[in-house]
């Protein structure tokens, strides 16, 4: 029942062994770093880092292959749509166009356009890779502990942790309900039913699922109250180990990177630093 991609028990590799705090902070710095610009000089290193990270995590190929193909294809389609909607993005971002070849008067392919779309594509894929690395490297409890270390109130962190705790239970209920509805004659095969009918039949599964899921609330909150949840203003985390030498090294990296990000954003806002880069 646990064919989801996130782990519940930390693995053995370098990234897995970092503390939750380190992973969460590094992740946030990298995501902001990627969001802030379209400069290929900045994106490319993180893109490569993302690939190295992914390989170092030694994921099960079967489970990640599909996702990677799916995301790459989805982004390629997006890029294509972008082009079709406006083939003159290069002009917009760089202020000049150099024609490579031409379909008709409107649909031309320029070097600038290709460069921009390439940058954007790599930016999207790099964000995806970093997210995927993060997902593969972290456990829900470390995620909660990491958020907590970033001064997020622990009641909010608990929501993330608890949601993960009950996902397998809910997924199991979902399968059970589906099965019993099928036996009573609900046709769920997409080939045999139209869209509207399928929506209707989804209601039949949804109602018992919602009811059984929300029925647990009372029991669970009682169990938590009885074990002192919400007792103090602070709490500690069993899953969050102390800073190791590796954590300290990575800490230096994300602090430096964070400073760079702040500098860059200040540069963008006040000193007209360009968000794109075109070498030719």
């Amino acid at each position: 029942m646990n064919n989801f991609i996130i782990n519940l028990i930390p693995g053995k590799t370098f990234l897995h062994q970092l503390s939750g705090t380190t992973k969460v902070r590094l992740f946030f710095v990298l995501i902001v770093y990627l969001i802030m610009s379209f400069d290929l000089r900045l994106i490319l290193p993180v893109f490569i880092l993302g690939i190295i990270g992914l390989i170092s995590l030694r994921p099960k190929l079967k489970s990640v292959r599909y996702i990677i193909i799916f995301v790459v294809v989805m982004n390629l389609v997006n890029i294509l749509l972008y082009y079709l909607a406006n083939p003159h993005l290069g002009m917009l971002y760089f202020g000049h166009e150099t024609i490579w070849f031409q379909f008709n008067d409107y649909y031309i392919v320029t070097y600038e356009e290709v460069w921009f779309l390439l940058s954007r594509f790599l930016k999207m894929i790099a964000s995806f890779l970093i997210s995927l690395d993060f997902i593969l490297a972290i456990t829900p409890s470390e995620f909660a502990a990491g958020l907590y270390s970033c001064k997020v109130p622990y009641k909010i962190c608990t929501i993330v942790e608890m949601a993960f705790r009950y996902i397998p239970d809910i997924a199991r209920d979902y399968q059970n309900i589906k099965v019993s509805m099928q036996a009573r004659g609900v046709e769920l095969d997409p080939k045999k039913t139209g869209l509207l009918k399928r929506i209707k039949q989804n209601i039949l599964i949804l109602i018992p699922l919602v009811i059984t899921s929300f029925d647990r609330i009372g029991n669970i909150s009682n169990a938590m109250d009885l074990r002192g949840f919400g007792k103090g203003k602070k709490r500690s985390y069993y899953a969050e180990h102390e800073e190791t030498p590796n954590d300290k090294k990575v800490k230096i990296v994300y602090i430096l990177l964070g400073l760079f990000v702040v500098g860059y954003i200040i540069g963008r806002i006040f000193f007209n630093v360009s968000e794109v880069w075109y070498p030719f």
Partner: protein
Amino acid sequence: MSKKTTLEKFIGVWNTKTIVGVAIGAALFGVLMNFGSIRIFTNTSLTTAMVVPVIVGGLFGPLPAAVAAGVGNVIADLISGSGFWFDWSIGNAFLGLFIGALPLYGAYIEDGIFEVKHMIIYAILCVIGCGISFGLVTPFFTYLWYGGELTITLYQSVVGSISNIIVLLVIGIPVLKVLASRNSRGRNLKAE
């Protein structure tokens, strides 16, 4: 019914029950996003998950609904592994404020109160909420963070809004009706 101010109803009571309710809501959102959805466009899909914040809102108030939707979306991204798309998470959370506003206009699902007038208000809020969340909030962040062509982003938003409105009305209203009538304890029941 105790007399709570609108603000109190909006924020909800953040006790252990609410926290668990929001967590279960987020988990349910994540599960439905991954199993109970039909993909119709890049980045958008017709998903029954959207109904979850409505119910969380009905039980605990709009802010818990928004948190359930936002966290639920992050969790859906986490378990499917398809990367984080915070622009959509924020949009969903924003939508949660609108569709989860049931207690603000007197629809108490837990006490079995969901009448025609509530249905109409709910429907209007769904349309407005989808319009604002996917027509303004999500495109704004998409544009800010990932740049690119506004037309496409807006086109995605239109598809996203419409599919969500369909789900919220076609699935949401019947579900709310069933839940409400289930909770209205049968009074004066007589064996026939």
